[in-house]
């Protein structure tokens, strides 16, 4: 009798007993998800996204990517960062091993790095260049790009690949 009167009185006062959605379990899921996403960002190291349409080859390499100048070679063009430098067809049309537009852009990049190094008070070390090559490109293209890099004073090269699960 007493319980019934309590229920009635609570209904009269508008107190919510069970009509509200319990958000606690959903909050738990969202908190876990948030931590997981944040952890993947922290553990991911240097984050880089290949240009659209470029498929990197798969490899068992384990070395993480470092911050560096990125040269992307897709099936049509050669890019430095996101800047389109020349087309693969143009680069292959020349008999020379040196790709002139790429060499000019690399020279500018090297001068810029040199200025930054002077401003920071660092010595100019060998800078790493990361090559993001499409898996379909032929070795002749890669060879010309590597020759141009070597000519421009970039000896340390990192070939970007997608980690293959063994």
């Amino acid at each position: 009798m007493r319980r019934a009167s309590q229920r009635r009185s609570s209904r009269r006062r508008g107190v919510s007993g069970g009509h509200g959605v319990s958000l606690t379990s959903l909050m738990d899921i969202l908190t876990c998800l948030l931590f997981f996403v944040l952890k993947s960002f922290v553990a991911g190291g240097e984050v880089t996204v290949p240009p659209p349409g470029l498929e990197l080859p798969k490899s068992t390499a384990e070395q993480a990517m470092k911050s560096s100048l990125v040269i992307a070679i897709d099936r049509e063009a050669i890019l430095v960062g996101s800047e389109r430098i020349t087309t693969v067809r143009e680069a292959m049309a020349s008999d020379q091993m040196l790709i002139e537009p790429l060499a000019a852009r690399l020279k500018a990049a090297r001068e810029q790095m040199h200025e930054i190094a002077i401003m920071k008070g660092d010595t100019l070390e060998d800078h790493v260049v990361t090559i993001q090559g499409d898996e379909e490109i032929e070795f002749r293209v890669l060879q010309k790009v590597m020759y141009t890099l070597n000519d421009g004073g970039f000896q340390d090269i990192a070939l970007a690949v997608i980690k293959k699960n063994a």
Partner: protein
Amino acid sequence: MAQRPRKRRSFRQLINCDLELRPLMNVFIVLIPMLLMSAVFMEIRVIEMTLPRAALAAEQKPQQPFDLALRIRPQAYVIEGDGATLAVIPRVETLSRGLPVAEAAAQISNILTAAVAAHPDNKEIRIVAEPGTHYREIVAVMDLARAAGLPQAALEGAESEGI
């Protein structure tokens, strides 16, 4: 009569213990899709290489303990040690989607492992590719060499000297 006020107090406590989670929920609902959209799910790794300096390349190359080379020829993979042919593995018949198939890969791996066992000081291999060789095949061969204990791979063109 003495119990009534106590019951009322507990009733009030029930009302006050509800946490207002909706604002936090709203923040999470905005934050999680934003983070997921900017997340990169492909793990990008690198294969590091060092090119010979132009001045150094023109001069004498440093002597390696054992000159191991893997030539990717149109018809076969040729493995050479100090200029002598160690093995010839057919390529075209075994090529699947531009990659060496399991048997060819196993053969290359076995020969390279044997070469490493015979010359443990050597950690280098020259990969000599034809101009038309696909990049993914070169990477696959580099993977086999690394797995066999040769982490330092140098790329060379079959026609030209140098790189």
